């Protein structure tokens, strides 16, 4: 097994242990060029876990509030929904 394959399998292994990374915020303050492979693995692992949790919550919310969500999508976006920062003028 090549190193690359090993990394792929290890990082996608749900049992991969990143418990020594208590707080990722320290990693985000660091020079990105000084992040180790394991630091990046930890960030990716956490982001994937977060995504899984969020998708489960979204799925639950959709099931329980279909009617309300359906009504909302028909509304015209209000001014507060516009990304005023991101419009080039």
């Amino acid at each position: 097994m090549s190193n690359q394959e090993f990394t792929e399998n290890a990082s996608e292994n749900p049992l991969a242990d990143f418990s020594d990374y208590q707080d990722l915020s320290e990693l985000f303050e660091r020079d990105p060029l000084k992040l180790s492979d394991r630091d990046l693995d930890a960030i990716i692992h956490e982001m994937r876990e977060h995504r899984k949790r969020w998708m489960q919550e979204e799925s639950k919310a959709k099931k329980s509030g279909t009617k309300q969500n359906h009504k909302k999508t028909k509304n015209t976006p209000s001014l507060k929904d516009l990304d005023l920062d991101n419009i080039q003028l």
Partner: protein
Amino acid sequence: MTAPRSPFSEITPNLQIVWDSTSLGWLKTCPRLYYYKMILGVEHTGTKQPLVFGLGFHGGCEEYDKLRIKGELHHEAQKQALRVGLLELGFHEEAPTCAVCGSLNLMDVDSSEGYCQDCLDTVSVETQKVWRRYDLDSYHSPEALARAIIWYTEQYKDDPFTTYTMPNGEPAVELSFVVPPGEQTQDGEELFLAGHIDRVVQDQSGNLWITDRKTAKQSLYSNYFDKYTPDNQMSLYATSGQLVLGDTPKGVIIDAIQKAVNFTRMARGYAPRTPAQLKEFIEDFKLWVFQAELYAKMDQWPMNDTSCDKFGGCPFRKICGQSPEMRDRYLSGPDFRSFNWNPLDKR
């Protein structure tokens, strides 16, 4: 056909001959706005956070696409994408550091010594390259960017649309283009369209599509994608894509990424264009440039005062609202700064 070295005409001062969607959009919105930004080169000193975040997201996704098409594994490509993306959120600079502990908390620094507030002692000082991150809010933080890159690449890991490989073997990712649509100024100078295409993909039938990624705080309502048809940028990309690729793309695929503090939502929409629509865009483009040519020759750029209220209010409104003799003073004030937008700049 050689590409021009300047975006402006050699014959008519202040007449732009190389147009990208940004500058064309300014002209369409308001000729006076266009004049301030493109001719005078001033912009409002507003936040740069969305721009920096967008560069990080686009840079990261571009790296991911390039590595994947070269055969790199998903996870390894994600790691490189993360690093490339995060690097856009700051810069490196030479700074004095403590030679003992590496701290930047120094006082009273002279050429070789300083007081280290961590060592609590006078120490030797050495200059090192240090990382300075921009001040970013929680919508544009490194964590939000990392989440956007990872969630996006997870979502489209097995994208049915595959990155197109150019005839020269290079993946069609972040293509900077300058192409002549076959139109000229009234004085006979060749006009050009310019810009940057995020990615060109092929659907399962082999049709080409241009893709564009949009990051926004705006909620992705079901009608979110309606605004892209018609749309200046998407039509310019599809038209230029035809000239760059030598094949008419079906249109533009828009991957919208909603930035939020604790999640990132994604949706994919389509802005198809027919060959007749692309032809119409070029005809309209020519008329817009004719207008710009008239304004440049008259050295007069009219206000479109029906646009002042759009997008929460034009930042130049406080300039245009002044009496003409007062405007220069406001433009050189602290609310504005000089900047140079050049459609020929490559990413």
